């Protein structure tokens, strides 16, 4: 890993650590926003390395809208998050093409 790669990852790690520390004293509703932001920054890092899929880019576009959704309405924010979780879950439920190296769960 190059120094610049490490630097970029360290910036993300710093963001998550400081968020964790500051959330001990910040308003509780900042918590979801920080996790949303961490998601966005993680996908951004992957994008810069050319390993973000179209699906991950869709997620990034969606999470970028989340802060303004929360400003408009908490219900809208929760509903958009539910939709996103559902989309991610559906993707997770799709078998990986070429087969998985993990054993199948017992029926």
């Amino acid at each position, binding site marked *: 890993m190059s120094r610049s790669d490490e630097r970029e990852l360290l910036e993300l790690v*710093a963001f998550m650590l*400081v968020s964790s520390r*500051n959330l001990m004293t910040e308003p509780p509703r900042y918590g979801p926003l920080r996790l949303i*932001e961490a998601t966005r920054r993680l996908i951004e890092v992957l994008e810069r390395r050319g390993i973000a899929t179209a699906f991950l880019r869709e997620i990034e576009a969606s999470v970028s809208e989340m*802060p303004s959704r929360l*400003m408009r309405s908490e219900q809208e924010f929760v509903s958009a998050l539910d939709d996103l979780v559902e989309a991610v879950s559906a993707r997770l439920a799709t078998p990986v093409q070429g087969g998985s190296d993990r054993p199948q769960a017992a029926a």
Partner: protein
Amino acid sequence: MTETEAGRLLKNLITTRRSVRQFAETKVDVDRLASLVTLGTWAPTGGNAQTWRFVVVTDEPTVRAIHAVSPGISSPPPAILVICQDLKRAEELGGAMGRDRCTPMDTAMAAQTIMLAAHAEGLGTCAVLSFHPGAVHKILGLPDEIRPQLLISVGDPAKVPPPPPRTSEGVVHLDRWGRPYNDRLSRPQEATDPRGEGRKGDPT
């Protein structure tokens, strides 16, 4: 009351300033930023203490480092103004009140002055309190007695958000708590004007 041109301009600046979180990549000239800070020093301070200290940050790696430890900054801005306070000097001048209560107020008043001045020049700003003071202290190499209290991200706005609605009900009370000023405005018959014209327009 006759409104002056300066008054109109000031009202316009106050009501059109927004917290800008997305900036264009254009650099902001250091001298321009320093002149904003100078205007900030015209804000009042408790006991005229003037214990604020400012660090103007435009160096990209430093901006990025501060951004990394400041969850309140969405994306790295072209510049960050770090408003610090000399807590030792504040304590010498104003005791515990000067150190603990005056410095955050003085920082806030300087910040608002800077943000309005920046807005007058077409620059966007956002005041940020969600940062790690110890980390910023380390990144900037601040002396022990100098503590960062507020960050202001600055740059040419890429996106200006719409204004959130302002709460008015129950905000202003007249003479004593529980007598909202708005109520009085809505009941002109109770106004003190002997001509019964009620109170209209701006309060004097």
